[in-house]
């Protein structure tokens, strides 16, 4: 997620962000990798029906929906609302 987020940073994720509203394009979210459940941080770049296309900002080095496909709402943990070291 360079340059927005750097390796080793701590982010604050709001798990309640999407309780009353839906994830939007450009939201940075914490999500579960559909392949192995690992937590990833990606940006939502497309929404189709109820599926979300997520991408890392560092496109050349990101493993994201281009590899593992679109994700469901259930894979999204919450919205990244702050970053600090």
């Amino acid at each position, binding site marked *: 997620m360079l340059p927005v987020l750097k390796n080793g940073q*701590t982010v604050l994720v709001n798990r309640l962000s999407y309780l009353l509203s839906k994830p939007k394009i450009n939201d940075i979210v*914490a999500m579960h990798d559909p*392949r192995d459940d690992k937590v990833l941080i990606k940006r939502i770049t497309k929404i189709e029906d109820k599926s979300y296309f997520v991408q890392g900002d560092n496109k*050349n080095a990101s493993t994201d929906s281009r590899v593992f496909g679109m994700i469901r709402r259930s894979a999204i943990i919450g919205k990244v609302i702050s970053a600090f070291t």
Partner: protein
Amino acid sequence: MKSLLTSLAKTLPVQTAYAHCDLPCGVYDPAQARIEAESIMKIMEKYSGFHEDEQKWRAVFIKEQRAELVKHHLWVLWTDYFKPEHVEKFPELHDLFWRATKAAGDTKKSVDPAVGQKLLDLIAEITEIFNKTKAK
């Protein structure tokens, strides 16, 4: 406020988010897949000598884990290392990775060393192409 959050982050249990190869670190090596495949091969060879159920159960369980790791290492190489120019030069690349990943799956379903050898042979083919892409 930020220093408070920083202190909290240092004291409270925080979960790690993974940014696989988002550095990018540039470290790729088919040896990772090969080593796990060699482990599978050894397990298959030893299996016929096991008589206790506990030994057999553990062998199958551990073989399953190693096979999943082979798949992961192959995916990482295929999706993160190899570029379009490599596919142009080695058009068999996608098919090779498809067959190697299937072979990894096959090693889960069998204890026949011949099945393990097939996986090792396919990883050797991938390694050959990988080395050619690294050669100057």
